């Protein structure tokens, strides 16, 4: 096979080494126990080590004979919009209530697209809020207050 470097391979391998290593190191702070009676740290340590080893193998392979994977651009705007929207939803659904939270979350998500116009975004957000209120609160009897304590209701 032709020798070629593959950035995605190295990155993926690096992620595996990092997360596997972190879990392995983290599991050292729990009791390991013996193979007979494994403590809470034993299994994560073994799997974490295996994962780090696999990650290392992927890095090495990526440097010598990597897979050709097109990495492409990262849509930073979408990444930011989706993350902010989800965190907003989780944080405020209890505090603001179902309706305002859904409205803002849906609006934030629509901003992920570069081509969206402000009016369209507002319309989509409003429509989805009505739909989700009907489906989840009216239809499925989800027990989330429509308007929460932050609004003084």
């Amino acid at each position, binding site marked *: 096979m032709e020798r070629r470097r593959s950035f995605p391979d190295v990155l993926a391998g690096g992620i595996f080494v990092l997360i596997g290593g972190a879990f392995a190191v983290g599991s050292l702070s729990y009791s390991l126990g013996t193979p007979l009676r494994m403590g809470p740290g034993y299994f994560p340590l073994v799997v974490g080590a295996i994962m780090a080893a696999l990650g290392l193998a992927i890095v090495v392979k990526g440097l010598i004979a990597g897979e050709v994977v097109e990495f492409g651009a990262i849509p930073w705007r979408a990444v930011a919009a989706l*993350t902010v929207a989800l965190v907003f939803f*989780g944080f405020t659904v209890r505090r603001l209530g179902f309706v305002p939270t859904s409205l803002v979350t849906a609006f934030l998500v629509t901003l992920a697209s570069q081509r969206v116009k402000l009016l369209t975004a507002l319309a989509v957000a409003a429509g989805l809020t009505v739909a989700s209120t009907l489906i989840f609160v009216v239809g499925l009897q989800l027990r989330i207050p429509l308007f929460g304590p932050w609004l003084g209701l």
Partner: protein
Amino acid sequence: MELLDNLALGFSTAFLVQNVLYCFVGVLLGTAVGVLPGIGPTATVAMLLPITFSFEPVTALIMLAGIYYGAQYGGSTTAILINLPGESSAAVTALDGHAMARQGRAGPALAAAAIGSFIAGTVATVVLAVAAPPLADIALKFGPAEYFSLVLLGLIVSIALARGSALKALAMIALGIMFGTVGQDIYTGTPRFVFDQRELYGGIDFVSVAVGMFGVAEILRNLENEHTRTATVGKVKNLWPTAEDRRRIVGPILRGTGLGAALGVLPGGGHVLASFTSYAVEKRISKRKQEFGRGAIEGVAGPESANNAAAQTSFIPLLTLGLPAHPVMALMIGAFIVHGITPGPNVITDEPALFWGLIASMWIGNVLLVLLNLPLIGMWVRMLRIPYAVLFPMIILFAAIGTYSLSFNAFDVYAIAFFGLLGYILIKCGCEPAPLLLGFVLGPLLEENLRRALIISRGDATVFLTRPISASLLVVAVVALVIAVLPAISKRREEVFTEDDA
């Protein structure tokens, strides 16, 4: 003739007007909710469960079974149409089902899923009625060592699903298992990797991982090149499978049914194993291997049949041993208990009308499912015409609400974002998300049974090789690993020549 008497009793119960009616309502509601993006069967059943509490026990359980089938089919529909499996077993369906949808063949994909599910459901119901008692005996022989080997086999088999390198698939499995260890340790109660956040003690929710890895990551990929992207899917050509399609799905449906009926009996992820194994088998024996992952109808029909057959037979451990084989079965146990019935061996003798009525209603549920869904395929396919600017906010919002509603835990929603970003980067690097998901689901079972087996054997690790069932499962796992790794090397060379038109 005992069986016929039993079935007669079952059908006389199941055919009561209110039972048929609520079974239908259950199927309808289950499909309608299950088809919502990001809401899988577990979430659907969990959300609809409270509705059934006010009915008679038999009616309530029949309705719940209907909800479950409906939800499962609804979940397959979203997996096919918008590549968003709500549950791990539907992740397999999404591989080829969504590829078919992109080629404008969503109709045949949905029809193959419905027909396969119906045939599998019918056959598996008979299997359930005939084999429940003897199969329960076999399942009783499964000790922790056997479970461990079985789960390991399931994980290895899932490598066959990954299109990229086997190495990356293995690492993804390990990553999934790692995330599965977050939360309280089952034996000691020690909280692991929770960073002092009480909300993480219960572990990471499966739904968050699935929605993040498949839903959010897929949306981010779609938003990558908005300027060049024209439409998510090709034009819908025909709604019905062609004669060629029909010929191609017969074998996969029959094999999937057999596999699913057999594997569904095994407590713990049998339905996941069934659909994954069926896919692997179809891919292995197909003459058109290169089509798999790019819209092979066999890759939809087989796993869907296996999944549905397993869904039926997973009632066997529940009804005979009181063991939930499946998160939905755990909810069913809850429903049994609410109605004052303890699931277990006594159900058959103490509540024969309920036991056989439930079995008969499974078949009725399947008939209703096919009657309801074949005419509606046109409507589901029309879902594809929703503009993407509306669709992706809908997926994210519904997923956030659905996930939050499972346990009212804000961390489950944050986890969606986390797994979405992680999944997006890993997918960009050529890693497939399906093995991670399976590792996440099966990891805790792997650990639990490993530790239990070693405690029982007093630390003797050879127990996995000295017990015959366990040993043979491990041998199959090793063979599967070798097969998965070896052809990967030669196959990739082939693909260099054939991939250009993909």
